């Protein structure tokens, strides 16, 4: 089994010039958690992740790990302000460009390894062809979903 056999192929995407609010609507309506951002040729240029959005709403001295615990402090006014400002921004301003992408032929053990050994948590892996055009998306559960089907068939 390889990436192509376990990936979800019908992937909702959005484009660079859409606002975060529009992207959120897609996430809600499609009941998904990740939204790849593609250009006109279906080439992946970024990924909208909850982690990156949270990262952007926090002051950098917190998101960079200099203040690991803020239990002692009340909420910052600027945190709330940034949260609400986020809605009007274009997705390309806030997308994660440091996402994981693989070719369709990659083995599922390698896919599992990427999820486990990445330096920062990986929410999903994008499957692309050799011109970076989106083919599908893999979440950690996809590995096991296909494994179940496989064992049931046996």
């Amino acid at each position: 089994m390889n990436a192509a056999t376990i990936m979800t192929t019908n992937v909702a995407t959005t484009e660079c010039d859409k606002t975060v609010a529009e992207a959120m609507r897609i996430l809600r309506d499609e009941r998904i958690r990740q939204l790849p951002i593609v250009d006109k040729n279906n080439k992946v240029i970024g990924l909208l992740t909850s982690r990156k959005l949270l990262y952007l709403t926090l002051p950098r001295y917190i998101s960079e790990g200099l203040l690991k615990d803020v239990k002692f402090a009340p909420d910052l006014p600027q945190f709330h302000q940034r949260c609400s400002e986020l809605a009007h921004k274009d997705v390309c301003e806030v997308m994660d460009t440091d996402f994981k992408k693989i070719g369709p032929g990659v083995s599922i053990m390698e896919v599992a390894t990427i999820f486990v050994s990445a330096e920062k948590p990986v929410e999903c892996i994008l499957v692309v062809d050799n011109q970076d055009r989106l083919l599908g998306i893999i979440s950690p559960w996809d590995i096991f979903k296909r494994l179940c089907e496989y064992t049931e068939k046996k």
Partner: protein
Amino acid sequence: MLTAIIVFLAVYIILIVDKFNRAVVSLLGASLVILLGVLDQGKAVAGIDFNTIGLLIGMMIIVAVCQKTGMFQYVAIKSVKIVHGEPWRILVMLGCVTAIISALLDNVTTALLVAPLTILMAEEMQIDPYPFLFVEILMANIGGTATLIGDPPNIMIGSAANLSFMDFVKNLGPIVLIVMAATFAPIYALYGKQLKVDSHVRERVMQFNEREALQDIPLLKKCFFIFTLVIVGFLFQHRIHLEAATIAIFGAAILLLITGEDINSTLEKLEWTTIFFFAGLFIVVRGLDETGVITILAQRLMEATSGNIAITTMAILWVSAISSALTGSIPVTATMIPLVKEIGIQMGGGRDTLLPIWWALSLGACFGGSGTIIASAANVVVAGIAGKAGHHFRFIEFMKLAFPMMLLSIVLSTIYLYLRYL
């Protein structure tokens, strides 16, 4: 002889240019000293002052564990609430807390603990954190001057001249307090009036809950116990005939044993760059020393001052202050130490004759570290944290205020040294 001088100057120039990691530069310099035959490896390794390295490592381990308890944040928040969130008083309180913590820990750790908290507080009050951070940089350098472990130059000087924790406190404590007081005056003139906030903003600061900053109470108790033990060890250092490195490493080992902290993750937190920077620098300077250049320099200096201890002391104070501000206090101190030792040999007389010069070197190197944003590690760290928070420190803007204030502290030191020792 020429080889050693060239390597030394090259290392210095590359450090000033600041394009490459300083540890890499110093290790490269150290390797060249051996490869080019200035020293053999045995002599080079003997040039490393393991008392300095041991004390640095020991304290870094203790601090790495203690930091996790949140005890320093607790003190900082508590101090802010004592003054009811009034910004100018917060500035003074945080300045004093920074000075005290910096005297007991290294400056970099102090900066890492206090600066993010300060920015959070300033943002909570919606005022500019710059004056707060500026004062904290100065206070980290000034406070660190008061003790053996407060600032790396003192660790080196204490080791070279066999001076104890208490020697530093007794001799440099008074001038440190004077310079602290003198530092707040111009800051008040510049920023005092601007620092006003409404009472509902002050309320926000009063909502900070310092108890929540404390993380792990059992760990806190162990850390507090060992930290106190180590400081007491330093206080009686001469009476128990132990080097500072032994006390620090012993404390660190006991702390690791009783807390069961993961050794790998603790050791990862150590500032290895600084440690290797020191080791390499010691070798480069030993190479220079071996060639006799430093002896010649010392002779020239003695001729110029005609052996007058007062003039020599002032020369060391001012030269080390200005050069520390421009190149950083650690390389300056490493180079000055063999020079001062050589002066001691040429002057004759006992250890006591040389003491004013050691104090001059410490005051010059530590206070000089405030002069520019690159002069000491604490400055670089605070500027880095501020930059990440979107409050950028500009080299010139910082220097416009910091350099004159550094000169003020050196003028005060000149008067102090003259009145007390000369």
